[in-house]
Each structure stands twice: as structure tokens, then as C-alpha cells.
């Protein structure tokens, strides 16, 4: 019942925050958001499950209750966590609280609605990562979009409306594609519920039948492709990434943090849960195209980041690049590849959150994010700047920070992959991203943070307040902690990903 309690509390907290006057909202929301952290940490400490939730492993904190039945299918309230979802739940609660604190400075309008939406989004995100019934999952999955739509659209930058609608419609269309494909899959299976474990195990047992004249093999391929496209938009990977920079640039800092930190992980989480767990053979059949997508995302995303002059856009494109690694790790179908991809989800969540937050702190002070408008900020706001530098190095994959762990696991996993033909070539190409990422981040830092102080806007630069810095420090601490001791999460992740490999027949 802990998951239900977590969800209920977060929803209730959201409603409460909606109701309070604007001037109390920020502190109340932060206070309330600490409770889910405690809850998720309790889950972590009490977590004893083993194996993958979908392939028949033990599921922690599992609850099942019927919801409704239609056309012979039972829809359920079915939640639980395993080693893949628990780290993401922890990430969600942790990041939300910090994002809420990072909103204190920039959000000065309709605060109660803002913080209410943040908490609402948190609740739905927890739902996404814990739901084990497809419909329940899908409801949460889509429900995440709505708060984000408002967060971007109401509190965003000058082109916020365009960005919000683009984000909303683009990702929704993708969801639709995925949804249709998944339905086709389920209807061709002899299952009587939408429980993900049941569907996975039925697929693993080879019970897929033909659908509308499509032979089972073809169907599986088509479904895999469609679901991949659907989730790829959310990830996002090239070439369906263009909503991301717009959304990030326009979103207010806390929303960017959540978008990059958690929302993108929904896409990779779903890819792992659906495409790669349910249809591993089809994944191997598409290994080369997916490998190409991964590599192109890494390199092309990084090249785009290099061309940007807006700090947020740089970080946004670098997210595309980083997510490419995750795809590479997934398609490798090896222990370290998949485990590393999952780990990288958490790591990138923390690091991109840190980067967006730090850029946000700078923006709060300077009111510009354009690289050419400023230089030498390290002189005036040293703490924020040096944390940004630390974040940037984390992003570049500096060892003993979480990003390196994730990336290294992925690389070491995918290099010797047998599921991905030419795995060493793909891996080596993708790894070149670590050079480009260093290039654009160092270049941007050199131009904005260092050199003689200069600012093109009329704002007085002051040191960032404590509540701006505190979340940065917390994130940095978490990044280093996970970088030094990745096994905090990695062990349980492996526990849950290794069964997928076994399911794939030793791919």
C-alpha cells in the first residue's frame, strides 16, 4: 500500500497547494514534496524484490485490484516496483522537491497553480513508474503531459505557446501510435487482462497469433517499429527530437528540470519495459537501424548543441545526445548495456537537472541565456558558476560522477554485444560524443563564465540566494554519490535487467 499512499499523498498535496494563497504556496509545496522523498526512500530501504517485474520476477509493494472489464479484458489497478522502476521513483521524488525549490526565485506569478501542477506531475510520474497494468500506466503516462503543458505554456518564455502546443501535440500523437500498436499486440495474444507481466510472459511463451492477416512475426515487427517510434519521440531521438529544444528553451527552469530529468526517462523506461522486454527478438531484427539512430542521436545531437548560442538550447540538445547512449545501451542487449542504460536514465536525470537548474540560476541573475551576452560570470557569482562547471564536467562523463558510470556501463556493455552487429563500430562512433560534449560545454563555459566580466543586460548581478544554491548542491552530492557508488542502484537494476536478457534467449 505504500505506493498507493505515495500517490494519494502527492495528489492530495497538489490539491492542497492549488487551494492555498500564492504567497504560501512555495514553502508549503516544498515541505509537502519532502514526504514523497521519505516514502520513496522507505521503499528503497524496504525493497527486497528480485528479478524483473514483467518477466515473472518478484514485485515489490505489489497491489492488484480489478478496475473494469471490457470485451473480455480485465483492466486493473496494478502497481508495484522492481529494480528498474524503483530508482526512477526515487529520482522523481528527489528531483521534484529540488525543482520546486529552484522555482522559488523565478516563479512570481500564480504560484499556487505552479506548485500544484508540479506536485500533480510528480504524482503522475510516480504512477508511470509503478503502474503494471497497461491502461493504468497509459493514463499516468498521458497525465504527465498536461501539467507540463501548462508549466511550459503559462510560465514559459516568449514563444511558450508554440513550444507548449508543439510538445503537447507531438508527444500525444506519438503516444497514439504507440497505443495503437500495443493494442494490436494485445489483441493477438491469448491474454485476458492488460497486466504487463501477463502480456510479457505470454509473448515470451510464443503465444502471439496472426492479426488481420498479418502473420505473427510480421505483426511483432510492425508493432515493435510503431512502439519504438512512439516512445522515441518522448525520449527523444533524432529525427523526432525537434519539440525538445523548443520546449526546453521556453520552459521555466523547474519545468526544464523535470522535463529533462524525468520526463525524457519515461520514453527510455517505456522502451525498456515494452519494446526491449516484450519483443527482444524484434529488437534484434531492428538492431542496425536502432544502432544507427542511437549513434546519429549522439553525434548529430552533439553537433547541434555545438551550434547553439543559448545556454538552455545547448543543454537541451545535449540531452538528445545523452539519450542516444541510452538507446545504444538498450539495443546492445547485454547486461552492462541494459543495466547501464537504466543507470544512465537516473544519472542523466540528475545531471541534466543540475545543468538546467544552474543555467536557471544564472538566468535569474542575468536575465539572459545568450552566450554572447555575457562573460566572466565566475567573478560575480562564484558558487553557482563553479557548481555549473561541476555539472558540466559531470555531463562530459567525468569519472566518479554518475554520468561516467552510466556511460561507461553502456559502452562496456555494448562494445562486445552480439545482438548488435558491428557493435564495436557503433560503440566507438557513439563514444566520440564524449569529445564533442566536452567541446561545446567547455566552449560555452569559457565564453560565459570565464574571461573578463561583461554583461549586456541592465541587471545588477548579485550572488544567488541560498535556496537557489541548495538544490544545486544536493544534486551535485547525489551525482557524486552515485558516481562513487553506482552499485547503490546498479545492483538492483542488474537484478531486474538480467532476466530480460535471459528472456531474449541469450541474445
Amino acid at each position, binding site marked *: 500500500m505504500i505506493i498507493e499512499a505515495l500517490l494519494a499523498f502527492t495528489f492530495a498535496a497538489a490539491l492542497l497547494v492549488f487551494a492555498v494563497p500564492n504567497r504560501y504556496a512555495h514553502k508549503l509545496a516544498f515541505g509537502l514534496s519532502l514526504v514523497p522523498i521519505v516514502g520513496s526512500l522507505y521503499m528503497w530501504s524496504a525493497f527486497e524484490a528480485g528479478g524483473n517485474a514483467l518477466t515473472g520476477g518478484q514485485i515489490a509493494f505489489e497491489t492488484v485490484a480489478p478496475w473494469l472489464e471490457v470485451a473480455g479484458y480485465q483492466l486493473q489497478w496494478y502497481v508495484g516496483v522492481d529494480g528498474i522502476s524503483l530508482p526512477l521513483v526515487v529520482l522523481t521524488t528527489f528531483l521534484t522537491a529540488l525543482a520546486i525549490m529552484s522555482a522559488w526565485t523565478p516563479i512570481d506569478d500564480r504560484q499556487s497553480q505552479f506548485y500544484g501542477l508540479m506536485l500533480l506531475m510528480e504524482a503522475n510520474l510516480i504512477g508511470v513508474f509503478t503502474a503494471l497494468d497497461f491502461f493504468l500506466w497509459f493514463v499516468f*503516462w498521458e497525465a504527465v503531459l498536461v501539467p507540463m503543458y501548462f508549466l511550459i505554456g503559462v510560465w514559459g518564455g516568449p514563444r511558450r505557446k508554440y513550444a507548449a502546443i508543439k510538445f*503537447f501535440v507531438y508527444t*500525444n500523437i506519438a503516444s497514439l501510435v504507440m497505443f495503437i500498436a500495443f493494442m494490436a499486440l494485445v489483441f493477438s495474444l491469448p491474454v485476458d487482462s492488460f497486466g504487463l507481466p501477463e502480456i510479457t510472459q505470454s509473448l515470451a511463451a510464443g503465444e502471439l497469433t496472426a492479426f488481420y492477416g498479418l502473420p505473427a512475426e510480421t505483426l511483432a515487427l510492425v508493432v515493435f517499429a510503431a512502439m519504438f517510434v512512439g516512445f522515441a519521440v518522448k525520449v527523444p531521438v533524432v529525427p523526432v527530437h525537434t519539440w525538445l529544444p523548443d520546449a526546453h528553451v521556453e520552459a521555466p527552469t523547474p519545468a526544464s528540470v523535470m522535463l529533462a530529468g524525468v520526463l525524457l526517462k519515461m520514453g527510455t523506461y517505456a522502451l525498456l519495459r515494452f519494446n526491449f522486454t516484450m519483443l527482444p527478438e524484434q529488437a534484434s531484427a531492428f538492431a542496425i537501424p536502432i544502432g544507427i539512430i542511437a549513434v546519429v542521436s549522439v553525434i548529430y545531437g552533439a553537433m547541434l548543441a555545438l551550434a547553439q548560442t543559448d545556454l538552455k538550447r545547448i543543454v537541451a540538445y545535449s540531452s538528445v545526445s545523452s539519450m542516444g547512449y541510452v538507446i545504444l545501451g538498450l539495443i546492445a542487449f547485454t547486461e552492462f548495456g541494459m543495466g547501464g542504460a537504466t543507470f544512465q536514465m537516473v544519472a542523466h536525470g540528475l545531471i541534466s537537472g543540475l545543468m538546467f537548474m544552474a543555467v536557471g540560476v544564472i538566468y535569474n541573475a542575468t536575465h539572459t541565456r545568450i552566450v554572447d551576452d555575457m562573460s566572466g560570470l565566475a567573478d560575480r557569482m562564484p558558487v553557482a558558476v563553479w557548481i555549473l562547471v561541476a555539472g558540466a564536467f559531470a555531463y562530459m562523463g567525468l569519472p566518479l560522477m554518475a554520468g561516467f558510470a552510466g556511460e561507461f556501463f553502456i559502452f562496456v556493455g555494448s562494445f562486445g554485444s552480439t545482438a548488435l552487429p558491428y557493435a564495436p563500430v557503433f560503440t566507438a562512433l557513439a563514444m566520440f560524443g564524449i569529445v564533442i560534449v566536452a567541446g561545446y560545454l567547455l566552449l560555452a563555459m569559457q565564453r560565459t563564465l570565464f574571461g573578463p566580466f561583461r554583461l549586456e543586460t541592465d541587471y545588477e548581478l548579485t550572488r544567488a540566494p541560498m535556496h537557489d544554491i541548495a538544490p544545486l548542491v544536493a544534486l551535485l552530492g547525489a551525482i557524486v554519490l552515485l558516481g562513487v557508488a553506482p552499485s547503490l542502484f546498479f545492483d538492483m537494476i542488474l537484478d531486474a535487467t538480467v532476466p530480460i536478457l535471459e528472456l531474449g534467449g541469450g541474445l
Partner: protein
Amino acid sequence: MSLLQIEPTSWLFALSSLGPTVVLVLSALAVLAIDSLSPDARSNTRLAATAAAGTLIALGITVWYLLAGTGQPATGGAISLFSGAIVVDGMGLFFTAIFTSVAALVVVASYDYLEDDANPAAFYSLLLFATTAMSLMAVANSLATVFISLEMASLPSYALVAYLKTNRGSVEAGLKYFLIGAVSAAVFAFGISLVYAATGSLLLPDIATAIGDVTDLAGILGVGILMVAGGFLFKTASVPFHFWAPEAYEGAPAPVSAFLSSASKAAGFAVAFRVFAEAFMPALDVAVDWGLLFGILAVVTMVLGNFAAATQTNVKRMLAYSSIGHAGYALIGLAAVTAGAGANNATVMGAAMAHLLVYGFMNTGAFLFIAMIERWGVGRTFEDYAGIGRKAPMASMAMAVFMFSLAGLPLFGGFFSKYFLFLGAINAGFWWLAAVGAVTSALSLYYYSRVVKALWLEEPTGNLDALDSKPTGLYAAVIVAGVITVLLLPGFGPVIETAEAAAAAVFA
């Protein structure tokens, strides 16, 4: 008299079985009576209370009957009245529940909308009469009663659309609605006559029986069926009989638009379901593949409604087109009942019924929100709606719920109903209908979110001081509709089960 009848009518039983209808008629008459007893009094409150009480009591009785199993297999099956011309069953009650719910919301909302009206008795009475007629449509089991009840529903609707007699838009809307309605009625009547020509009967079960003997008259029957379908297409605002809809919904007072686009559409489907499922099912093999007909029309309707809605500047007109699009979705239900398998037919039709129920709340709520805006006099276009979320957050939030639900986001009731509809269509072999439905749903998200964007994302451009007044009735109706739309997601189970059971009984 009763001694002489073919089947002696037990009047008490008949009246009690048609309880909701009787209550609606009586409340309509009561409204007229109140008005005639004190013609000069400003009696809006009394009239509204009477009308609201009538609709709510009718709704209560309907729900009670549904729960108690009146006319359903649990208590001995459909109740046939008046020599079989009327049949009270689960489906009829289900649809009556939709009509009365919508009517109740509209009445409550109209209390504020008609605040400045000198004499609103006509409005309430016409509304109640129209609801009465719809409840009769839902139980009509003969083409004669179908035609008459349908016309009885149409006539007050024309007047309601033109209710603002001094408003050119309202009158123009009424005129167009009436003219297309008259033509459609003529087509409908001609169709009935041709069906009669081919089968020699007007009772739906008898027609079904007689169709088996229609051999060379298939052409006559086919034309008849097509034209009868035309009558329903008019009522449901489906292509090609939809032309009245954008103007009528735009020009009519917003509560009337709400009523027409929700209840009236549902009534059209109620009667279409019964007629086609009971009478014309055998004609599929004999005369005309009306499943294909509705399939084609569903596609065209979905595409036209959704695409035309995409670029509207007037919010109400956008909703009008979206309402056409939704008619297309429900038409899927009509098309897909032809697959033959009884259980699946029940699923499809049940899904369509459930969709109409959900639609009843979300669409009514949306139009009532517009009624609120009209009441405030803010304006009609998307630009005029800018920034209303700041001043009226509760109502705007409800509107956002309606919009997202209409778009089929899986957060609210609109998702499941649409999903089950598509699911049924796929199971019936109409995957292409589901595909078009899915694509147009995706498009619809764009224009629905424009409303949300205007309300919440835009900064106010004009003066929004008018929003300081809080019309209680409108607010209550909008909020209630919003809450129900939200609750219909977790609570969709009972709805779909009831609908499926009711649909299954029709095919039994």
C-alpha cells in the same frame, strides 16, 4: 374502452413504465401553467426550479429503473406497450438518462442565462418538451412513433435555436436548422413510405420479419433505408445532413447548443440504433450494406468535423464542428454493429452508448462554459478568451477538462468511451474506421488545446471585469459536468457494463 382493445392497455403499468417521460411532460405543462397563472411575474426562479425538478426527478426515476432492472432481462425483458409501438428496455432507459442529465444541466445553467429574459417560460417548456420527445424516441419501436417523436423533438428545437428572436444570428441559425430539418423530415418520411412499400409494415420487428420476403423489391427497400438513415443523419448532425449544425450551434443560445449537440444527437443515435438493429439487420444481406454506408459516412464525418474545426476562430463554431466529428465517432458504433457476432455487436453498441453518455457531460459542459462567457459578454473568438483562466480558474479548469476529454486524452471519461468504440470497431473488422478515428482524434487535440491555450496560456487582452460576477447556476452546471467527466474515468466500469447489457438485450 379497454375492453375493446387488441391488447388491453394497462394504463397504470404503461404510465409507470414510461415514468420519466410522463414526469417530463407534466413538468413541461407545469411550467406553462405557472406562466399562465401569473403571467406578469418575474418567475424565472420558479420556472427554473420546476424544470430542474422535473428533469432531475425523471433522471432519478430512470436511474432507479436502470438499477432495478425495469425492462431488462433481469425482470423479464423489454416491456412492450401500445401494441408494440413502444418498447421500454435498458437501452431506452440508458439514453433517457443521458437526455435527462443533459437537460438538467442545461436547465440549471439557463437559470442564469435567462436572468434578463422577460418571460422565460417558453424556453423551459420547449426544452422539457424536447426532452420528452427524445425520451420517446429512445423507446419508439415503430417507424410511426419514431417519425412522430423525432418530429416532436425537432419542432421545439427549431424554436429554441431561434429563441433570441431579435438576434440575427439566432434567427438565421433557426432558419437554417429548420429548412434542412424540413427537407430531412421529408426525406425521412419518404424513406419510411418506401420501407412500408417494400415490407408492408411499420413495426420494427415486423419489418425485420418481412425483409426476408423482400426479393425483387430490394431496390425499393434499399432506397427507403438510405432515406430513413438520412433522417437520423440529420438528427445526429452527420455528413451529408450536417450542414445545419455549425450555424445552428453557433447562432443558438449556448445552452441550447449544449442541449442540441449532446441530447439531440444522442436521441438520433438512440433511435437509429433501435431501428437499424431491430428492423434493418436482415436488410444487410438483402438490400443495402448499411454498415458500409455508415462506415463511409463516419469517415467523412470524422474528417470533415475535425479538419473544419481546426482553423476556426470562433470557439463556439469550433465546438460545433467538433460535435460533428463526434457524431462520426458514434457512427462507428452504428457501422460496426453489422459484423454479426452478437456479443461483439453488444460491445460496439454499448461502447457507442457509453460514448454518447460521456459526450453528454463533456460536450454539454463545454457549451455551458461558452454560455457563461456569453453571459459575461466577453466575446466569441479565441482572442477574446485570452487570459480568462486568471479570473475564473475553476470554470477554466473545468473547460480544460472538457477539452482534453473531448480530445480523448486518457485522463477523463472521453478516453475510455472512444477507446472501447474503436476496440469494438476493430473486433468487427472495421479497423480502418478505428484508424481514421485515431488520426482525427490526434488532430482534434490541436484545436481543443487551442481553447486551453487561450484560457490559460494567453495574457488577457481585453477588459475582463465582467468576470467578477459569478453566475451560480452556470458555475454549478459546469463544475458538476466537469466533476462527472473526471469521475467517469475511474468509474467507467458501471457505465460500460450497463450500456453493454442494454445493448445485448437489443440483440438478444
